[in-house]
C-alpha cells in the first residue's frame, strides 16, 4: 500500500478507481488515469460518458463514492471546491455563467480576492486588483484600449465569455487548469485564435486537462487523450494512437476524426 502511495507522489494528478453514481446511474466506474506535469491531457467521450463528472470529482464539486484523487503528492478526495482551488486547480464550466452584473474585468476580482491570491499580493487595497484583472484580460485576448473590458458581462458575446472564463481560471495562478468544453459554441476562427493561447500556457509550464467535443483542435493540442464510455475508460494514448484505434472509431462513427 505504501509503495503505491509513493507512486502517486511522483505523479502530478492521479485518479485511482474512482466511482460515482447518481441514484443508480453509474456516472463513473473504477476510473483511473494520471496527468504528468506540464502535460495537456484530453478527455473525450460521447454525451453522458462521465467527462463532466470526472471534472467535478477532481475539483470537489462532487464527492466520489469510492476511489482517490491525488494532486502533487497529497490526497484531495472530498475536499471542498474552494480548498482545491486554493491548492492551485482551476476549472472552467461547461455552461458560461459569468457574474452578469459586473463589468468584465470586475469578474476577475472574485478569484483575485481569494485567500490563495491575496497571499501573493498583500499590498494594494483598491487599485491593484483592477490592474491585474486588466492584464489577465489582455492575456486572453481582450483589447485593452477598447470598451469591451468595461462592458457588463451580460452584454458580451459568447466568444468573449469563453475567454473571460479562461481568464477567471488564470487569475488563480493555477498549476493545473481543467477546462470543461472550452471550445463549445465557438466558431472555427474563434477556436483557431484560442489554440495558440493554450499552447502559450503550456509553454509557460502549466498543466491542462481538457474535456472537449472539438476533436480536431484537441488532437492538435493534447499530448495524451483518455477516451471514456459510460463511465469507464475505453483506452488512452497519444492522439495518433487514438485516431487509429478501432474501438474509438466505432464509438465516434460519423464524427470528425
Amino acid at each position, binding site marked *: 500500500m505504501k509503495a503505491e502511495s509513493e507512486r502517486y507522489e511522483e505523479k502530478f494528478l492521479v485518479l485511482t478507481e474512482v466511482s460515482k453514481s447518481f441514484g443508480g446511474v453509474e456516472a463513473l466506474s473504477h476510473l483511473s488515469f494520471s496527468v504528468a506535469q506540464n502535460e495537456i491531457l484530453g478527455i473525450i467521450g460521447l454525451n453522458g460518458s462521465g467527462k463532466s463528472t470526472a471534472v467535478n470529482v477532481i475539483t470537489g464539486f462532487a464527492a466520489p463514492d469510492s476511489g482517490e484523487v491525488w494532486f502533487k503528492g497529497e490526497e484531495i478526495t472530498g475536499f471542498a471546491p*474552494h480548498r482545491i482551488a486554493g491548492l492551485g486547480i482551476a476549472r472552467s464550466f461547461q455552461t458560461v455563467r459569468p457574474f452578469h452584473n459586473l463589468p468584465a474585468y470586475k469578474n476577475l476580482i472574485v478569484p483575485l480576492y481569494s485567500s490563495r491570491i491575496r497571499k501573493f499580493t498583500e499590498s494594494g487595497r483598491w487599485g491593484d486588483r483592477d490592474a491585474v484583472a486588466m492584464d489577465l484580460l489582455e492575456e486572453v485576448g481582450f483589447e485593452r484600449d477598447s470598451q469591451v473590458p468595461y462592458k457588463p458581462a451580460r452584454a458580451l458575446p459568447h466568444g468573449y465569455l469563453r475567454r473571460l472564463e479562461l481568464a477567471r481560471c488564470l487569475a*488563480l495562478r493555477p498549476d493545473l487548469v481543467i477546462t470543461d468544453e472550452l471550445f463549445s459554441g465557438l466558431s472555427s476562427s474563434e477556436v483557431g485564435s484560442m489554440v495558440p493561447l493554450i499552447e502559450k500556457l503550456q509553454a509557460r509550464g502549466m498543466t491542462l486537462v481538457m474535456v472537449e467535443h472539438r476533436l480536431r483542435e484537441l488532437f492538435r493540442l493534447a499530448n495524451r487523450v483518455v477516451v471514456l464510455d459510460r463511465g469507464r475508460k475505453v483506452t488512452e494514448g497519444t492522439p495518433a494512437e487514438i485516431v487509429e484505434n478501432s474501438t474509438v472509431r466505432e464509438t465516434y462513427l460519423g464524427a470528425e476524426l
Partner: protein
Amino acid sequence: MARRLERIDRPIKVLTEDIYALSSLKTMLYVAAPRLLPALLVLLIPVLAPGDYFQRVATLAAIYGLLALSWDFIALSTGLVSLGQALFFGVGAYLAGLLNLHLGLHPSLTLLLATIIGATICTALLAPCLPLRGIYFAMTTLVYPLLMARTIEATAIVGGTDGLVGVASFPGVWSERYLILIFLLAATFSLRRLMTTDFGLVLRSISDNDQAVRASGINLTYYKLIAVWIGAALGTFAGAYFTHLYMFVGLSAFSLDLSILPIACAVVGGLGTLAGPVLGAFILVPLAEMLRDLGTLRIVAYSLLLVALVLFKPEGILSYLKRKYEQVQRWVEV
C-alpha cells in the same frame, strides 16, 4: 411608422461619471444632492414633525426600513431570500428586554449587546440552512419565528404569553428619536459603500453564480455567514430599539407582519438598491397609517395600491427616480 423609446444619459451624468476631480459646483451638487437631501430630510424629521403621533409613525417607518434594508442586503449579497425577518427582530427584542430586566443594563448597553449577541444567535440558527437555495431557504426561515414564538408560548419561559413588562425606556426623547434614524442612515450608506468594495463585489457575485465563486477559491459558507450576520445585526438592532421604545416585549415581536412588510417595502422601493427598501418603508408605513380611517377596508385599499405599484412600476420607486435623474427619454421613429 414604428416608434421606439430611446433613453440617453444626461450630459451632466456622463460628466460626473468616473471623474473624481469634479470641476464645478454644479457637478458636485449633481452628485451629492441625491445622497445629501434625503439624509437631511430624515434627520429633520424629529425637529419638523408635528406632534408625537407623527414622530411615532416616522420611528415605525425607520424600524421597518431597517428590516427592509436587512432583507435587501441578504438578498443582494448572497441571493438568499429570507422570509424570516421577524426572527432577527424578535431575538433582538427579547434579548434587550432580558438584559435590561435581569442584569439591569442601561439601554445603550442592551442595544449594543442585543445587536451583537442576537445577530450571532440568528446566524448560528440559520447556518445549517445556508447551503439551501431559493424557496427551500425561504421555507426554513419562515418557520423559525413561528418556532420561537410557540416555544415561548408553550414553555412559558421569558414571560410566556404575557411578555416582558417594565423594560427601561430611553433616557430622553431626543435620543429616542434620533438613535434609530442615525443608525438607519449610517447602515444604509455604509452598506452601499461596502457593496462597491472588492469584498462587496465578491458578495454580490455569489447571487450571480455561486459555483464559479467556489471554483475561484472563495469559501462560500464563510462569506454567506458574514452577510447573514450583518443582515441579522440590522434586524436585532431594530428589535432591541423597539423593546425600549414600548418598554415591553411580547410574542408579537415574532409576528409574520415583520417578515412580510419589509419585503413589500423592498419591492416597492427597488430590489437590490439598499436605499430603495428604506424609501419603500417611508412610503408604505405612513400610507398604512393614512388608510386607518377606512376601517376594515384598509387592508383592501393597501393591497390594491401595493399590487398597482408592483404592476406598473416593477423596477421600484428608487430605480425609477434614479433613471429620471440620470436619463432623458424620447420617442424616435425607426
